[in-house]
């Protein structure tokens, strides 16, 4: 074993990029809520972008290295410290046995990602190492849990690599989220659509990896909130009877009986990873072309980093 959890904090789970093609069995994708952050952390330590790392929420995580290992911390700024001194973000560095990493106070965002050279190698289940606690696939980590790491890649020591600041996502407590409208367009009135696209919604405390609930002006229905249960894709925006949108995320259900007004585009799903209760968000409808372009841009950036950081 290479790592020991001293305190899991608010919630710490093992995540990679998740599972694909199992929604027909009721298995959601799971995986990192902020996939760009996890991918970048992995690339900084010389891992493939989809290796498993840790996702930690808000604050309180404390862990100890049991072996020398190269790590990187990305995502939200949760006040990471190495042995009581500020630890760098978006930069790889080496830690030694008995070194302690702690996350003490949230400064921006709300989920940080830790990648370790070699990746965390808990067993793969249904094609992924991602925790899906409700489905008894792994569980949130507890104190005294230990984690194994894989063999480091042969490329040699990958530390002191850093993501240029201009490529690090900026953090705000206001989030614009792009959506594709539909499919239950007719369930809502035109005024309801207008409310949805022209209002600011506040993130409810009742939000987690399964879904984000929001509070704001109620969306009005033409046909009502109930539909014959049908499939809900990742990012689906459901509207229950109270008219307040719920966004289904990585651990979200695969079928549902509420009308869906829109789907969040892939490129903007990561934003929810850094969205905390009390933050505000607004929805903007885009065309399919814009959504595909944005997704391709994100993928291109990861590809670019993969090449650029390999050079070390």
């Amino acid at each position, binding site marked *: 074993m290479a790592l020991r959890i001293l305190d899991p904090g608010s919630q710490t789970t093992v995540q990679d990029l998740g599972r694909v093609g199992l929604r027909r069995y009721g298995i959601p994708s799971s995986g990192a809520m902020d996939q760009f952050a996890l991918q970048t952390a992995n690339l900084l330590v010389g891992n493939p972008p989809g290796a498993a790392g840790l996702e930690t929420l808000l604050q309180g995580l404390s862990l100890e290295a049991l072996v020398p290992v190269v790590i990187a911390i990305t995502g939200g700024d949760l006040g990471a410290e190495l042995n009581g001194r500020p630890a760098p973000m978006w930069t790889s560095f080496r830690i030694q046995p008995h070194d302690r990493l702690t996350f003490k106070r949230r400064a921006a965002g709300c989920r940080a990602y830790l990648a370790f050279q070699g990746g965390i190698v808990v067993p793969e289940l249904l094609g992924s190492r991602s925790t*899906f606690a409700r489905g008894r696939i792994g569980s949130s980590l507890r104190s005294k849990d230990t984690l194994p790491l894989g063999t480091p890649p042969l490329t040699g020591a990958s530390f002191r690599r850093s993501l240029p600041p201009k490529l690090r996502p900026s953090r705000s407590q206001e989030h614009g989220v792009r959506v594709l409208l539909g499919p239950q367009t007719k369930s809502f009135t035109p005024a309801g659509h207008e409310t949805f696209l022209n209002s600011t919604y506040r993130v409810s405390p009742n939000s987690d990896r399964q879904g984000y609930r929001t509070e704001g002006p109620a969306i009005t229905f033409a046909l009502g909130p109930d539909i*014959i249960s049908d*499939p809900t894709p990742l990012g689906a925006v459901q509207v229950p009877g109270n008219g307040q949108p719920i966004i289904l995320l990585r651990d979200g259900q695969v079928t549902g009986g509420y009308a869906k007004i829109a789907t969040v585009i892939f490129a903007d799903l990561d934003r929810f990873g850094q969205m905390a209760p009390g933050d505000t968000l607004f929805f903007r409808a885009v065309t399919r072309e814009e959504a595909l372009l944005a997704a391709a841009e994100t993928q291109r950036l990861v590809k670019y980093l993969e090449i650029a950081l390999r050079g070390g």
Partner: protein
Amino acid sequence: MSPWVSILAGTAAPTRHPAISTTISEEDIGAACVPEVYPRLQPIGEAGVLVEYEPQISLKVHRKVRQLASALEQQPLPGMIEVVPAYRSLMVSFHPEQISLAEIQAAIEERLEHLNEFSLPDSRLFRIPTVYGGRHGPDLEHIAQTTGQTCAEVIELFSSQRYPVYFLGFLCCLPYMGGVPLRLQLPRLTTPRTFLPAGSVGMANAQAVVLPIDQPSGFHFLGQTFVGLYDPHQFPPTPIRPGDFVECPAVSEEEALGWKGRFVGECLGHGASHS
């Protein structure tokens, strides 16, 4: 045709007469033009196509869903990820960088023309031993009182039914089943319970359910099975498929507990055939 008829009622003008534009907004016509012709295809998100049949929960409509799902699974389309069936609709998810929306929609339309070349998988019967009432069925007495029957009659009626599985969904292979007899049907609880253990056997309206994991639910629960319905260490994580049938025969508590740790694959009835 019919939406046009209602919009144009009272006007003598032919459909393309320019005068119509002064009385009917484009939105009206747009809404009226949405075809209520099934199956209907529309995009859902950037990587999905939603195929919808008639809006009803019936085995007849569901058979069409299964036929298309089965045809697509037997011979997947290029760029297709998976098919997620539901009651009257199914979602085809795909890699948009491998196939365009227009291309996959055309491919689905094309497949719809050739459904008769694909067979439906056989329906199987799973008999899931269930202990009813007492601490295993918190709502049994309430169901009996509300429907004007004795507890024994409720158990007899519920446990003698064969429930068709429409699809697996929500989370962790939750089977959506229908077929609860009218005499047992009750609306959902207005305030859902926050916790029910895996294996709880319940119903609401015409829907029957066996919970695969611990979860909240607004259904009425009358029994419990100790057979596992969902196992993430196996693939697929349940052997139950849309189109199969489930029975929940009543057994003693002792017998029910004897199934603890066993998997629903062992409950597969032999020689059962269903259309």
